[in-house]
């Protein structure tokens, strides 16, 4: 290259271009150091292939190079801010040690102390990077404290004043409002009219309570300061034993199982906590029941004793009463007999004897002095007894009767039993099976007729008993001549009626006697004629008259007295 340069003639015009440019653009150009220019070498137009303008100086004062197909940022226009990258420059301290804690300091305030190194974990006495003076923990002196206090107070007062001012209403408007007068001279003098005007300017009085017209938008908070480096070890993983200790068993309820899980029986039993608590029953329960038992037994014993005592007392009382009665009876008997009371010992014996045959020996005893009336009374009594006994027996029989028998009895009482009548031939029971059926229901024309038409309403257009049935024979309306029964009432004619009246249907012959007193009646001609009865038919007037007089109805002496008396009368009648 040098040889070639030597061969070539020297250029006539020296280009005022620095060697750098020559290096880039014309590497073949000889390296000449004569003129050193501070200009940034920009290749001339047409030779910019492969050249990339990167620095702002490359553009001079101009714009982008259209022939360079790279991203260009003349005057740094459009270039992204490069400073917000996450990468940090590697920093070293004076010893050449890498400062790894630079990342912890990044983004923090410069005055913030950040503990991020191992030395911050070392106890103060073990730290070798500190002097003894650093280990002293002397409180600051009075002056320092005062200085701190003053500084802080100043800062805080500023804040407080600001807050108070913010809280107070700032500019309370004047009630009148400020007015100012302005002399206004119009610029265009149109000749006529006003040359000058005086304008009164006053501020609008604002309502101090008017809500703000513009909405305050809250500015979102800035990002928080980056978190401090953590100087503790991470929490340890829980061991299996610890996990087991923290295991809380799922709640199993005996009442709810919304998901419908299948719960083993032992879990279910464990759920109610029966096994967990040992049942402790208070001793007092046992004492209480024991006391109750004792008291119960005691009470029973007492009751038994009392009843025993009562029984004994009753017995004694009864005995004494009997004794007394006996004594009384004895005395009465003796009095009746006119015998003076006997001396005690003999009297007792007599009493005993009399008691032994108290009921049976009475008549023998009193035979001599009983009167005839006594006899009568006794007989009546006996008869009554007999009657009673018979009645009782009958009742007993009735009671002992079987159901069938009793039904029969009942039927007989109600006159529905025809068995005797059958036996007598007065009634004849139906024998054939057919006759059990009601022949009246046979061969009904209505039924035999067709069911054809629904609209034909022929259910009741025929008489119920019609035709050659038994019903026709049973029931025959006789009175209805109009209905076509011509036989009734003798055909309606006089002789017919007379004939019918004279008709001896049952062959009894002509009436000879007739009803008693009917002979005196005049022979009636024509129909019976009634005349109104004005007399007191039911005795109502008489009754009312009686009621007016106030006579009592129940006091009639005719109605019998007591039942016994009636009986006596009856008996006497019978005799």
């Amino acid at each position: 290259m040098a040889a070639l340069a030597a061969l070539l003639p020297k250029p006539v015009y020296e280009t005022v271009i620095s060697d750098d440019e020559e290096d880039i653009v014309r590497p073949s150009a000889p390296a000449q150091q004569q003129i050193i220019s501070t200009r940034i070498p920009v290749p001339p137009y047409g030779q910019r292939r492969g050249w990339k303008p990167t620095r702002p100086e490359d553009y001079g004062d101009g714009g982008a190079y259209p022939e360079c197909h790279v991203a260009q940022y003349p005057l740094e226009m459009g270039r992204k801010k490069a400073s917000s990258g996450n990468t940090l420059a590697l920093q070293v301290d004076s010893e050449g040690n890498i400062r790894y804690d630079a990342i912890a300091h990044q983004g923090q305030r410069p005055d913030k102390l950040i503990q991020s190194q191992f030395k911050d974990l070392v106890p103060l006495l073990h730290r070798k990077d500190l002097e003894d003076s650093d280990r002293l923990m002397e409180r600051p002196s009075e002056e320092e404290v005062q200085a701190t206090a003053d500084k802080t107070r100043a800062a805080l007062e500023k804040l407080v004043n600001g807050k108070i001012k913010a809280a107070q209403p700032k500019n309370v408007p004047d009630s009148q409002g400020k007015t100012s007068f302005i002399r206004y001279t119009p610029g265009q003098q149109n000749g006529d009219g006003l040359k000058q005007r005086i304008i009164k300017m006053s501020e609008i009085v604002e309502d101090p309570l008017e809500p703000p017209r513009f909405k305050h938008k809250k500015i979102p908070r800035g990002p928080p300061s980056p978190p401090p480096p953590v100087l503790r070890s991470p929490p340890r993983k829980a061991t299996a034993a610890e996990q087991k200790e923290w295991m809380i068993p799922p709640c199993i309820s005996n009442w709810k199982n919304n998901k419908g899980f299948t719960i083993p029986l032992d879990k279910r039993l464990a759920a109610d906590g029966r096994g967990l608590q040992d049942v402790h029953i208070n001793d007092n329960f046992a004492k209480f029941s024991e006391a109750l038992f004792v008291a119960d037994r005691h009470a029973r014993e007492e009751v038994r004793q009392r009843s025993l005592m009562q029984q004994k007392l009753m017995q004694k009382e009864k005995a004494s009463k009997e004794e007394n009665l006996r004594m009384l009876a004895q005395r009465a008997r003796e009095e009746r007999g006119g015998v003076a009371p006997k001396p005690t010992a003999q009297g007792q014996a007599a009493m005993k004897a009399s008691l032994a045959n108290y009921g049976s020996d009475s008549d023998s005893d009193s035979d001599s002095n009983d009167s005839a009336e006594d006899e009568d009374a006794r007989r009546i009594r006996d008869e009554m007894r007999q009657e009673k006994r018979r009645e009782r027996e009958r009742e007993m029989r009735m009671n002992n009767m079987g159901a069938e028998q009793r039904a029969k009895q009942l039927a007989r009482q109600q006159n529905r039993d025809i068995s005797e009548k059958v036996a007598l031939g007065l009634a004849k029971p139906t024998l054939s099976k057919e006759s059990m059926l009601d022949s009246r229901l046979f061969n009904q024309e209505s039924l035999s007729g067709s069911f054809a038409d629904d609209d034909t309403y022929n259910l009741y257009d025929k008489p119920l008993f019609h035709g050659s049935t038994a019903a026709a024979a049973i029931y025959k309306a006789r009175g209805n001549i109009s209905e076509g029964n011509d036989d009734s009432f003798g055909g309606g004619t006089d002789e017919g009626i007379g004939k019918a009246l004279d008709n001896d249907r049952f062959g009894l012959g002509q009436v000879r006697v007739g009803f008693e007193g009917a002979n005196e009646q005049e022979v009636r001609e024509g129909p019976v004629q009634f005349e109104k009865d004005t007399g007191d038919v039911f005795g109502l007037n008489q009754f009312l008259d009686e009621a007016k007089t106030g006579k009592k109805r129940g006091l009639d002496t005719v109605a019998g007295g007591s039942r016994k008396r009636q009986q006596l009368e009856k008996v006497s009648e019978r005799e």
Partner: protein
Amino acid sequence: MSAAALPPLEPLFNINGKRTRSVFASCPDAGFKDEEKSARLRLAVKIHDEYRDFKELPSALLSQQAHVGPSRPKEQRKLITAGASADAETSRMIAKIDNTPVSQPSTFMSSSKLSQALTLHKTTRTVKPTYHPPWKLARVISGHLGWVRSVAVEPGNKWFATGAGDRVIKIWDLASGELKLSLTGHISTVRGLAVSPRHPYLFSCGEDKMVKCWDLEANKVIRHYHGHLSGVYSLSLHPTLDVLVTAGRDASARVWDMRTKAQIHVLSGHTGTVADVKCQESDPQVITGSMDSTVRLWDLAAGKTMVTLTHHKKSIRSLAIHPTEYSFASGSAGGNNIKKWKCPEGTFVFNFSGHNAIINTLSVNAEGVFFSGGDNGTLTLWDYNTGTPFQNMDDIPQPGSLEAEAGVFCSTFDMTGTRLITGGADKTIKVYAEQSQ
């Protein structure tokens, strides 16, 4: 006979030689010493033969070790290995022979020998715990009808106030334990109480979303701080400013201007219920502990988080700020659940280890007695400076309460630091006292 009685000479010589050596070893002599050169040679050979592979850690381990692992600066190496003088000499000799390059400490870590790191742990600079007399239950006050959820002592140390699940705030005489006053007004559990040291005000907050300011001269509610979206679980007063910070179930802490009732800041950033909030006079002026198991330290002036502490594994229910030391403690559930932090940057100091329970409450007094009360009724008293527990107790529920009602919900030391007042699930307030000898 005498010849027979004499002992054999060999052991006698040995004994004699040993004794002589021990007598003269203390005052060394040139002739007595081993020749240094030969000793060095021997050591060098031995090191080369036996420890050649172990002079340096494997590269993999070394790279791990470079940034992590507490180790000690160079000048403390002597302190660690300080033992017998002969050992020191040997080590010095080793150091001379050993030409392994000592790596320079970086800002992170350096001094990368595992052996050193290991020995370091064993021989940490141990601070001896200070003695604290044991504490004993001094008084049980029963008067509330619900869980006692909050307690606060008046700055004058005359009385204290408790708030409970029965929605009542009760004020008790501290000396006699007599009920002085009952304040009603909350319609749900009272979860936080504070008495202002600069005003005659009592502040209370509850699960009814209400924060109330009671005037103690009239015993009436004079202000409401309205704004919480859910129950308010904790409340704290700023010691120097007229500012009140409440925190609750809406995962935010709110800063209120005491007089104007204006809400100055909403400290948002927690992702869970904020269970406790504490204020102090210098930065960080607000500290919150949350159920998202983080503690946040807040810049009160800006209303922004300064530091987030993510060391806890479970939700943090309680915080305690030491009155005189520039540090605080946070308590959560699980192991290593109480952590002490250094202010202002929230550097981890150490764990109070040994109280395995859900920590409901923490308290610390100026003498460095640190109290933690658990949800299961376990109480532990610690030395705050070293984190050593010096007393373990169990809360005894009052008779008639269930076994599960042995829990401590709130606690505070009185202003002198000699009484500890706790409120529990058995509806009682218990006062513990230091046993003086």
